[in-house]
């Protein structure tokens, strides 16, 4: 089967004060349909740049990204982005925020309310339809954002460190919930994080990126069985083994990233 998403020699450079800064360099990566792929890397490795490219918010300097065999040329509703800062419209209720995506796709008004309620139910927020974002906790806000992205039925879900701003307990429960939602909806998910535990728990494959410029260092396939049927997958020996493997791969990169950062601040 042809890959759902395919990066072909993707390079992105930004002009910075007269010189050029290479954010990502020669990325080659395939994502299968319905796969859960996690991109993990040190800060400043161009993770978010990759996601912007996938979302069509910027275009690559070299190479191309294919979605179902067609190059991505701009943003589109076939990809839904979940942002770290939730990006909820504060003047709309939870329901209204989910409907926002449906309005963009032109779903008739009657069906919108029904669909929004259905997806709020999917993320476990039934009964909170009329709350405004400021009346919801961080975890609940991110649930609304996930419901919004799922409701207009994109083929791919792009998630940019969506749980980074949450406390540990909320994060764990949302991770489990995301796996459940992924299994139920069968979406292709590209998930960005800097947390190793999160990468191992969620990903079917974890792509480890190098720091500045971002390249794919190694892609680690993860096999933990069905994560939801295991009681506490985070404490199994295999989990620890995968965790250590990725930690190893990342360790040098983190050190290098810190060194680079010092140099940048120093100049």
């Amino acid at each position, binding site marked *: 089967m042809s890959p759902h998403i395919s990066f072909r020699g993707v390079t992105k450079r930004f002009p910075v004060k007269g010189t050029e800064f290479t954010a990502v360099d020669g990325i080659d990566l395939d994502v299968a349909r319905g796969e859960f792929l996690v991109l993990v890397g040190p800060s400043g490795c161009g993770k978010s740049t990759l996601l912007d490219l996938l*979302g069509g918010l910027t275009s690559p300097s070299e190479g191309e990204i294919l979605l179902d065999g067609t190059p991505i040329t701009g*943003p589109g*509703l076939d990809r839904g982005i979940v942002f770290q800062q939730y990006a909820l419209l504060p*003047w*709309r209720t939870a329901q209204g925020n989910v409907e926002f995506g449906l309005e*963009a796709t032109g779903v008739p008004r009657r069906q919108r309310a029904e669909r929004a309620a259905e997806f709020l139910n999917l993320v476990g927020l039934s*009964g909170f339809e009329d709350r405004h974002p*400021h009346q919801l906790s961080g975890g*609940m806000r991110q649930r609304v954002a996930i419901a919004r992205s799922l409701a207009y039925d994109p083929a791919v879900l792009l998630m940019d460190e969506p749980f980074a701003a949450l406390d540990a307990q909320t994060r764990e429960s949302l991770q489990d919930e995301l796996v459940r939602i992924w299994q139920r909806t069968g979406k292709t998910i590209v998930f960005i994080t800097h947390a190793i535990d999160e990468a191992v728990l969620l990903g079917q494959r974890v792509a480890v990126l190098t720091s500045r410029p971002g390249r794919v260092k190694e892609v680690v396939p993860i096999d933990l069985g069905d994560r939801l049927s295991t009681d506490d997958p985070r404490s199994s020996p295999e989990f620890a083994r995968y965790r250590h493997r990725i930690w190893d791969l990342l360790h040098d990169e983190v050190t290098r990233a810190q060194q680079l950062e010092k140099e940048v601040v120093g100049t």
Partner: protein
Amino acid sequence: MTALLEARPATRTTPVAVRPQRTRRALDALLTGAGKTVAIAALLVVWEVAPRLGLVDATFLPPFSTVLGAWWDLLVSGQLLENTRASLVRSLSGFGLAVAGAVPLGLLIGWYKPVSTVLGPLLEVFRNTAALALLPVFVLLLGIGETSKIAIVFYACTWPILLNTISAVGGVDPTLLRLAKSMNLGGFRLFQKVILPAAVPTVFTGIRLAGAVSILVLVAAEMIGAKAGLGYLINASQYNFAIPQMYAGIITISAIGVLFNQLLVALERRFTSWRVPVGA
């Protein structure tokens, strides 16, 4: 607020915890209400007692009760209403025109970045030119009739609304713009669904400022050249040495100012009820 609702949707605050909190809140409101009244009452008591005890010259600061008497006489004779009407018509016309003109203009300027870059310095100059300094110009161009007074109020009200509207558009949360972009929301719909609602609170701040400005500038304009209006009443009373009437005019102006502001605050609350309540 957010802390009350925990991660798992199932947990809600128990009614037991809410009850005593509510009574305490009511008590708090009562206390702050009383506190606010106390300050004003104290001022009025001082106003009443100080002239009577001879601490200040009663000719220049008559006791509050005398002023109230004069106010009542003005009301009964119909003078007060007539002057108030004249002032309100002018200030509301100028204010209304400013809202109608400056909000759309501000949205436009804020939306087109190059326009705001070009016009920015010019707007800054106008904003920092005291409106009243231009009153002679308005009188020269438009005469001393109603037109020049409405025009000066319109002019003075325009700046706070315009500048706040421009910065409101510029200050829309960039993640929301990214979201809209990722959803391919373009042009008009982006404006209607994201920028406009996000701008409302800041625009209202400008409108509220303009409300205060409209009265301030009008009274000053009426003092300089008018045959009616509260500014005229205050000034004419002072010329004729009708000091209690002068103070009656002043307290009327301040009451109108407070009422107008309260009205705008209530409107603002209504339109921005979704905002995080700030110390309400």
